[in-house]
């Protein structure tokens, strides 16, 4: 916990001075201040607006932001401000997946998570930058240009939810939503030094999340600490008749449950996640974190997830196959871009897609179409689905004995902008530690666990059983209470 009592005392005497810094507080701290009546939600909105105005020219984390509109919305909604990744539909607001093919698109309806946030009185601030259609690990494939990592503006923030992660890390957001298909919430959270949670597949409705890979996609949260992740998860979770893959199970009161200690919990440390060639400082930070968890009473043991080496290969066949099918809808007929100067409908489809999709989107559609095409289907797509069964089984076996699995979030800290854009395969390998959770459908959270010598954040990943977000958040919360990493903020 940050020193809340001191802040409250400070707020009641010097509200004006404090409101300038409200953007730096966590949601649960702000909820405390709001409930006491020391500040108003407008103070919070204003401090966020000021932070975006001041920092976003250099960060490029926000892609659709209108100060006046925010203040208008804040008249009706009196809760905390929230930023939304640009692939989640907000009624009548630009929702473009950072792609030219959707420029100008304004959805006629709200995603279910947006309806839930509005019911919780949230003030929608705007949209955050992302890799085009969430295709990437660096936010470099966005049609709006790269988002910068707040810790080092020459480096990427991770991706694809790079805008959401950078906003939270720079205190330009209290919290934000992202989406995670192969690590797109956890990896940028790790590289930006914030908390990123991917819930179990089926925990949060995907209705209104523009589909990338429907069997892997899940909406997740980017927050300053674990308690906030628990609060936001509860807000957006639950069964939704509009998403037939959302599961009808009760939503626990995560924020309360995570405060229990972790004595006696059994944690598996998979040897396949400490590979040759991974960054030494990252390895050390994660090993130190494991020691810390042991000192808190957890029992850590080395385990093996033997099919981990196939995860990236399986993922880039399954995810691209599903993407090629999902992105067939962008054909210039119902919404988005339509190419001019065309000869007939087929030519219109081809030119629209040729002009509208960026390089990585084309590459993934080609790869996915190839893997699904006649003559190659069995050798690529079907084989990948069968190996996916083995990856899922690795986790099922491990969770018979262990309560959670501890790994690094990424093999390296944030890399330089442009460093990996020429070689797609090197970029795909950035997701090596996060992908398996999506293939198995299990939840995962990345929490800050250290910094490299050059002051770049390191993420610790905690993976859990399906629908057991409670335990991974509990481990994360206990770890946070015993460390200071999540409190380290930038002077920016």
């Amino acid at each position, binding site marked *: 916990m940050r020193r809340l009592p001191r802040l409250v005392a400070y707020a009641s005497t010097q509200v004006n001075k404090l409101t300038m810094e409200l953007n730096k507080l966590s949601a649960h701290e702000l909820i405390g201040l709001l409930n006491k009546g020391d500040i108003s939600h407008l103070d919070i909105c204003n401090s966020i607006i000021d932070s975006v105005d001041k920092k976003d020219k250099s960060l490029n984390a926000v892609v659709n932001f209108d100060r006046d509109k925010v203040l208008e919305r804040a008249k009706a909604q009196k809760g905390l401000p929230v930023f939304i990744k640009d692939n989640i539909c907000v009624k009548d607001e630009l929702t473009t997946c950072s792609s030219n093919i959707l420029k100008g698109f304004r959805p006629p309806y709200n995603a279910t998570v947006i309806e839930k946030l509005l019911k919780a009185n949230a003030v929608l601030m705007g949209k955050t930058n992302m890799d085009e259609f969430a295709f990437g690990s660096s936010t470099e494939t966005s049609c709006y240009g790269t988002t910068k990592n707040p810790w080092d503006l020459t480096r990427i923030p991770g991706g694809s939810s790079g805008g959401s992660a950078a906003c939270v890390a720079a205190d330009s957001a209290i919290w934000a939503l992202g989406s995670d298909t192969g690590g797109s919430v956890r990896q940028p959270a790790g590289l930006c030094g914030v908390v990123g949670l991917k819930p179990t597949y089926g925990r949060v409705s995907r209705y209104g999340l523009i589909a990338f890979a429907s069997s892997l996609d899940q909406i997740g949260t980017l927050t300053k600490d674990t308690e906030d992740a628990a609060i936001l998860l509860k807000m957006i979770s639950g069964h939704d008749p509009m998403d037939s893959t959302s599961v009808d199970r009760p939503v626990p009161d995560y924020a309360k449950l995570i405060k229990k200690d972790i004595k006696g919990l059994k944690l598996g440390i998979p040897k396949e996640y400490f590979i040759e060639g991974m960054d030494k400082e990252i390895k050390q930070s994660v090993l130190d974190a494991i020691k810390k968890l042991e000192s808190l009473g957890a029992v850590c043991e080395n385990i093996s997830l033997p099919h981990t080496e196939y995860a990236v290969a399986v993922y880039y066949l399954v995810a691209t196959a599903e993407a090629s099918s999902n992105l067939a809808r962008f054909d210039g007929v119902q919404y988005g871009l339509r190419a001019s100067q065309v000869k007939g409908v087929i030519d219109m489809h081809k030119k629209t897609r040729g002009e509208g999709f960026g390089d990585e989107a*084309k590459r993934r559609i080609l790869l996915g179409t190839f893997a699904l095409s006649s003559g190659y289907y069995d050798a690529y797509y079907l084989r990948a689905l069968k190996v996916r069964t083995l990856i899922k089984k690795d986790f099922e076996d491990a969770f018979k004995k262990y309560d959670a699995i501890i790994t690094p979030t990424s093999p390296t800290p944030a890399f330089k902008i442009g460093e990996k854009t020429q070689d797609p395969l090197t970029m795909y390998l950035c997701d090596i530690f996060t992908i398996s959770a999506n293939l198995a459908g299990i939840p995962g959270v990345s929490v800050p666990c250290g910094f490299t010598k050059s002051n770049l954040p390191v993420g610790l990943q905690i993976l859990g059983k399906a629908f057991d977000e409670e335990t991974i958040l509990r481990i994360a919360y206990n770890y946070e209470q015993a460390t200071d990493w999540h409190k380290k903020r930038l002077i920016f």
Partner: protein
Amino acid sequence: MSINKDTVKYTAALGRIELSEKEIEHFTGQLDKILDYVHKLKKVDVSKLEPTSHVLEMKNVYREDKVKPSLPVDDVMKNAPAREKNLFKVGKIIE
């Protein structure tokens, strides 16, 4: 070689994407490298494995067959690149 220029051209046609000669060239090289990498899956004996296309153990999800209000037509049509009355307008389909 896992993939050549002709296969990339054919795949692009299936995926309805117009590519320049330069793009075909660079995608061929890149896709070849990626496919080489995924060939590691050949090492796995998959003969006795069932495919996992979905992680949840749910079968069919049914709902009541009740008519509910739909979105207003004008709201749905407002993003249309071209519209005539309540229809999406496109070029000629049959020559």
